[in-house]
């Protein structure tokens, strides 16, 4: 019982979770803006920002999909102790965590229904770098335009076309966090 799967949770859960929730909310409300998220540490290869997001957004009632590289026994144990979220295949997932290159095709995730557009997956995507440069973003929450170093363009354009259905994305890198809701237009810079 000396492994690190038990440590790395929030030190002061109510306050830390509130701060993290505010950051997550701002990230989705202002696509392209980069927030900082600290206070949590999950086993490798999860970034601190992604760990804090998981602790804040997931609980025992939110099925979580782990991409193959993230699906390690250590991370499963960490999730079991701190969150209790069931691990599921993509088609049943409310949240998904993984590297962009490691995720299965996005068509495999639920995009919600016309009656319940919220019954879709929120993907937490780990990137090697996250900067305010690259793809041009426009739409709700962006005054003129914003830029974000997205890993691709076409899948996000296709996702925008599904609106009001579709997937929502968080991008994490170290302690940085950015959001891309389904309502944002994505173009080449």
């Amino acid at each position, binding site marked *: *019982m000396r492994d690190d799967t*038990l440590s790395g949770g929030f030190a002061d859960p109510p306050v830390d979770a509130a701060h993290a929730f505010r950051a997550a909310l701002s990230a989705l409300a202002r696509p392209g803006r980069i927030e900082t998220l600290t206070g949590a540490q999950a086993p490798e290869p999860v970034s601190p920002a992604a760990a804090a997001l998981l602790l804040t957004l997931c609980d025992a009632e939110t099925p979580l999909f782990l991409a193959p590289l993230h699906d390690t026994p250590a991370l499963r144990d960490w999730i079991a*102790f701190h969150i209790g979220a069931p691990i599921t295949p993509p088609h049943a997932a409310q949240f998904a965590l993984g590297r962009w290159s490691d995720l299965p095709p996005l068509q495999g995730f639920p995009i919600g229904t016309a009656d319940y557009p919220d019954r879709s997956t929120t993907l937490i995507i780990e990137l090697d770098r996250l900067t305010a440069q690259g793809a041009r973003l426009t739409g709700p929450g962006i005054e003129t335009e914003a830029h974000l170093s997205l890993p691709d363009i076409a899948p996000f354009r296709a996702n925008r076309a599904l609106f009001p259905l579709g997937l929502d994305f968080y991008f994490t890198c170290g302690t940085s966090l950015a959001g891309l809701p389904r309502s944002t237009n994505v173009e080449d810079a």
Partner: protein
Amino acid sequence: MTAQNDQGEARKRWMSLLAKSPPARLAALTRDMTDWPAFEWLRPPEVGGVMVRGRTGGTGAPFNLGEMTVTRCALRLATGEVGHGYVQGRDKAHAERAALIDAMMQTKRADALRRAVLDPLATQMQADKASRAAKAAATKVDFFTMVRGED
């Protein structure tokens, strides 16, 4: 394997005892202890509800008896032992004491701790239970039927 099972059984017993112990009792028994080991929180004490299930019918089907308040926490001693505290009620200090005792029962201090805290606690709780049962038994009414003389 058997040794591990025995250890698990023993831990189950003291966890059960700590979970059901009255907060004031445990606090009184540990008041003189000054050498609490250093520890770090894995999960700070938090209050929540759990569903208590029982078997009410003769068929043994589970039945939701009701919810009860539980406080839980987890901590790790500086020496590496992990202790969990699950106690009834919303007393966070009580949960911390229970988790500390659980962790310390895995160290060399186990025997001393068993003599100083767990055994007296078990005896007291057993005595409470017996005296309550005796009080209840005193109010027992035996019904019997006199000969009705119908002949």
